[in-house]
């Protein structure tokens, strides 16, 4: 495949997903300037590797590259903030508070009223691997299989991370302050 073809493929496959790419990078890095650097680097990688795209789900392919680039960037620039698997397992072992409280459900109303700043803060405070799973599902609307592909884990792990991420955000938002 010559380079002209590659440029056309890049324009067709990558550029339509630029907003999603930027959105994911923003949530992973936590700020907009870093997200721009990550997306630019990811697009360069995508361009070089466009031969490796076999057709099919272009968005998942692009987001996989963005995610890997974002974590490489975090490791290089902010190694302390990257959550390693061991830490994550410790978090996942934590017993989740089981609210047996039947009857009224005041938390649901509080959560429904949470404003942008509170939502942002609650999601931003999640461990990185929980946060990306929640963002890919509830902000970007990807299905479990796509999220599994992008994050490189089995679907069972996606389900577990998503359930825990939502529970933690609910616990943060469902408390009257």
């Amino acid at each position, binding site marked *: 495949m010559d380079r002209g073809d590659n440029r056309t493929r890049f324009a067709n496959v990558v550029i339509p997903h*630029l907003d999603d790419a930027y959105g994911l990078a923003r949530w992973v890095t936590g700020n907009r300037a870093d997200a721009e650097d990550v997306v630019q680097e990811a697009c360069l990688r995508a361009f070089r590797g466009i*031969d490796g795209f076999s057709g099919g789900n272009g968005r998942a392919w692009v987001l996989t590259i963005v995610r890997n680039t974002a974590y490489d960037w975090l490791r290089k620039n902010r190694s302390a903030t990257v959550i390693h698997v061991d830490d994550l397992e410790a978090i*996942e072992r934590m017993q989740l508070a089981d609210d*047996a409280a039947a009857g009224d459900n005041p938390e649901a109303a509080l959560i429904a009223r949470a404003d942008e700043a509170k*939502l942002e803060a609650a999601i931003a405070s999640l461990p990185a691997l929980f946060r990306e799973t929640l963002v890919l599902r*509830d902000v970007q609307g990807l299905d479990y299989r796509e999220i599994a592909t992008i994050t490189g*884990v089995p679907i*069972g792990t996606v389900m577990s991370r998503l359930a825990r991420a939502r529970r933690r955000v609910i616990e943060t938002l469902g408390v009257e302050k």
Partner: protein
Amino acid sequence: MTENDRLLLNAYIDGELDPAHVLELERRLAEDRALANERARIEALRGAMRERLPRETASPALRRRVAALARPQPFAVNWRGGWASMAASVVAAFAAGSIATLVAIGPGGREPVAELLVASHMRALMASQPVEVTSSDRHTVKPWFNGKLPESPRVVDLTAQGFPLVGGRIDVIGLTPVPTLVYRARLHVISLTALPLSSRASASPHAIEGYNIVEWTDGPLAYWAVSDLAVPELENFAKAFRAGEAVP
């Protein structure tokens, strides 16, 4: 509410539950107040995220910089193809596994070494290239690990046996950076990772998500070979690697 109830409830809300479980869960939602309340909270959260979080858009400046990549460049960008079919097989493996996985939900969370290695292998196949150092010369690959890891791995030339060296990369398993050599068998990629023996898992599964795993120990190290290559061929590879002469 058990952990499994939560997973099923979340999958139900996301429309990812199979029909048999949907009926069962809807019956329970009608009876179980705590479960119904949790559903209301999750729906409230999803609604708030949908309505209040701003839609992130790439800035015009970023768009221009990226679009410039797609325009003719004065410098040559050269990349050899060939990974396409492998990336496709990753996607196919997920497609095949998804329904079964949804029904057979385990306790979740725990990721044994074999799973982490398969995940690294899959991520590498989906990256723009599966190696960080590309070389078929073991005298180039081995020194590349020096200075990055306390010990560089044993590197064996297996070209004559049909397993040319592609290069190497560093994977992080748990908190430990470990060397991974990448070999090729026809169109298949083999990731061979050397781990300290202590991180060896008790069970030794032979296939995860369609990838075969062959494991052996050599002195203080456990070697794990991961590939979509058939088990007998992967075992041939392991045998050849063990018998091969390493770079001093």
